[in-house]
């Protein structure tokens, strides 16, 4: 069992599996104490109804779907709403400093979009507190020998057996720069999402799309990439932005439309109800999977959904393991060695680059173009302009220089790899945004301002083939509520 990623969801998944007695190896690019991807305040929705106001998981489910413009697959959303109260109980017992009533019990608050007060918060503390708490749990299981932490590894590639099933990963130690493979029948990906491409984002600079893109390149489907949540006052810190000559940062201008910040990507790797992607044995949870939120997230649902997905995949991945027949161990050594050699060559080619372009300046240009053309307001024209810019940046990428030639802790090579992934992911996002010719939730097209249920009440699904994104649409699961019932219909603005 391998978990790729050091996010809060990855740690929750590891801890839940270890709690069941399953040994887990966690691969993160930085120390798990320092890998919390977001500083948003802790807000978690759960229909605990402690104050007998009439809330229920059913009502939580309805509020979630309505806010998500009915784009979310319903089965998982219902499961999340039913399990959320248990998650709060578990976190409370772990010691999370939830806001409490005068009597000393958990105090829920009312959030925008919810009909009942069901949001449990840790007052003004950020997600770092939650992350550290689950880190503590992981440390306990590490002491028991159930979790093995590998804290300096970057994901390079998924290993697939001849039947196309997951059989392990290829990783690079970002200290010694050694590349190696690790065999496993189950790989759970819990890296963060794709909003880091936008430059101005509220996640951490360690959050990158490299892992996501490498998986997509290998044939893993991506869903709803055009759904990116923006906010104006997302960051409390004044140093979150990419610097460039043109965009001198001004704290006071945070209120303007030009200073939108990408806070969260609601799209991600496509998965089924078991959180398994289209590759058998590869699971995706947390922000890097597209489930739960649809076209907009209900305020307070983000963390609940992340932690629920981690908790849920612990069950479903074990079920998969119990039915997989041939184990990854049975593949030949030469098979792995060939793939390793290929990755080493790619790394050496990157290391060798010595052109006139600067990686970080290109990243900045990409980010500023995206925020203007593929930001909170888009149009077919702006999206096509963005594609032209992508082409230009793609050509200039061939002339970048990796300024650091060291064979120890070489961050520039990792940045080069990241830029390549960002350029391709940006293209994927733009193509999907062009294909969805309607406005729904966070995806607003000024040339198609109304939502079109007939054609687009479907999940955008993207397949990467022949170095290009191919967009198609998939019907959503309408298990509990039919299409847009009149009582819950909301006009999309």
């Amino acid at each position, binding site marked *: 069992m391998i978990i790729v990623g050091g996010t809060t969801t990855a740690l929750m998944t590891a801890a*839940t599996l270890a*709690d069941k007695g399953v040994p887990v190896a966690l691969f993160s690019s*930085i120390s798990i*104490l*320092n*890998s*919390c991807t977001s*500083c948003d305040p802790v807000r978690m929705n759960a229909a605990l109804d402690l104050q007998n106001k009439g809330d229920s998981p059913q009502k939580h489910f309805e509020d979630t779907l309505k806010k998500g413009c009915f784009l979310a697959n319903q089965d998982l959303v219902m499961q999340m709403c039913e399990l959320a*109260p*248990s998650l709060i*109980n*578990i976190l*409370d*017992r*772990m*010691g*999370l*400093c939830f806001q*409490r009533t005068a*009597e*000393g*019990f*958990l105090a829920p608050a009312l959030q925008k979009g919810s009909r009942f007060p069901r949001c449990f918060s*840790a007052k003004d*503390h*950020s997600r*770092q*507190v939650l992350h*550290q*708490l689950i880190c*503590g*749990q992981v*440390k*306990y299981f590490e*002491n028991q020998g159930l979790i093995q932490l590998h804290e300096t590894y970057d994901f390079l590639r998924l290993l697939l057996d001849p039947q196309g099933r997951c059989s392990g990963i290829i990783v690079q130690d970002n*200290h010694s720069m050694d590349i190696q493979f690790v065999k496993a029948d189950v790989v759970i990906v819990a890296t963060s999402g794709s909003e880091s491409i936008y430059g101005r984002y509220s996640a*951490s*600079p*360690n959050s990158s799309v490299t892992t996501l893109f490498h998986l997509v390149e290998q044939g893993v489907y991506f869903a709803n990439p055009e759904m990116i949540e923006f906010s104006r006052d997302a*960051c409390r*810190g*004044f*140093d*979150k932005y*990419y*610097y*460039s000559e043109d965009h*001198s*940062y001004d*704290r006071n201008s945070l209120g303007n439309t030009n200073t939108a910040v990408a806070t969260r990507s609601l799209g991600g790797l496509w998965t089924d109800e078991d959180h398994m992607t289209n590759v058998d044995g590869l699971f995706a949870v947390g922000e890097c999977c597209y489930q739960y939120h649809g076209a907009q997230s209900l305020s307070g649902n983000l963390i609940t959904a992340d932690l629920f997905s981690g*908790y849920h995949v612990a069950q479903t991945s074990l079920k998969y393991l119990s039915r997989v027949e041939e184990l990854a161990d049975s593949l030949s050594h030469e098979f792995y060695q060939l793939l390793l050699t290929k990755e080493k060559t790619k790394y050496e080619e990157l290391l060798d680059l010595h052109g006139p372009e*600067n990686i*970080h300046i290109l990243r900045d240009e990409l980010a500023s173009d995206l925020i203007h053309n593929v930001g909170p307001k888009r149009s077919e024209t702006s999206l096509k302009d963005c594609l032209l810019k992508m082409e230009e940046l793609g050509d200039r990428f061939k002339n970048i220089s990796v*300024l*650091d*030639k*060291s064979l*120890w*802790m070489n961050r*520039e090579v990792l940045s080069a790899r990241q830029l390549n992934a960002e350029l391709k992911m940006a293209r994927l996002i733009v193509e999907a945004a062009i294909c969805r010719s309607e406005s729904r939730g966070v995806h607003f097209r000024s040339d198609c301002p109304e939502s079109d249920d007939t054609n687009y009440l479907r999940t955008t699904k993207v397949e990467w083939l022949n170095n290009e994104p191919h967009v198609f649409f998939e019907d959503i699961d309408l298990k509990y509520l039919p299409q847009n019932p009149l009582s819950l219909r909301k006009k999309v603005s």
Partner: protein
Amino acid sequence: MSVIRLKIRRQDHPNSSPYWESVEVKLKPLMTVHSALQSIKQWPVNSEAGAITPVVWDANCLEGQCGTCTMLINGRVGLACQTRLDGLDEPVRIEPLTKFPILRDLSVDRKKISQHLRVMKAWNLLDGYYSTKSHIQLTQDQEDSNHLLSACMACGACLEVCPQYNEHSSFVGPMSLVQLDRFENHPNRKTTDGGRDVVLSVRGVEGCQNTQNCVKVCPVHLPITTSIAKLKRRATKLFFKTIFG
């Protein structure tokens, strides 16, 4: 646009010798040490206009919440993402922490912090990851203490300035004692033996000499020595109990 002079202490490898690099960075409004280091990535030249490799440093949240970018700025420990450059004496000296082994440039190996958390058992032991269907009730003191001490982000600033925390002493350091105090106050903490032997020994509270440096540098202003004083009181009570029963 004005320029600010930086002097960065670099080291290419854990075993190589350190050296100083002088860099000039265009000063922008509200610029922090982190953004200065970031801008070197885009314009990697030193003050003699010679090409350099970008500086390696660790950062994560950029909001003063995670403690990853702790380093010495003009000799004082602080978070790079929260330390503004305007008003600092030039050339601004940027150095890595001294109490942790250097990996490269400003990036240090913080495994020691993880070890401390494991020794202190900085977690609540649960029966299992399922709902117990009963609700925990906390007193106001417990809630306040939990809320306050949860802010400790294990940044290592207090360890850097504590004179008793060094390679010659087995003192666990102020951070570990704060973490211990935090979990000890939670009603779900059934077992206290994780900290007991540490608390009673030189490794624990006896090691603290009340220098108060930690309180001065804590980025979240935790009353560290208050926590340590509470633990010392508990240790004294335990000590008398073992003698008199």
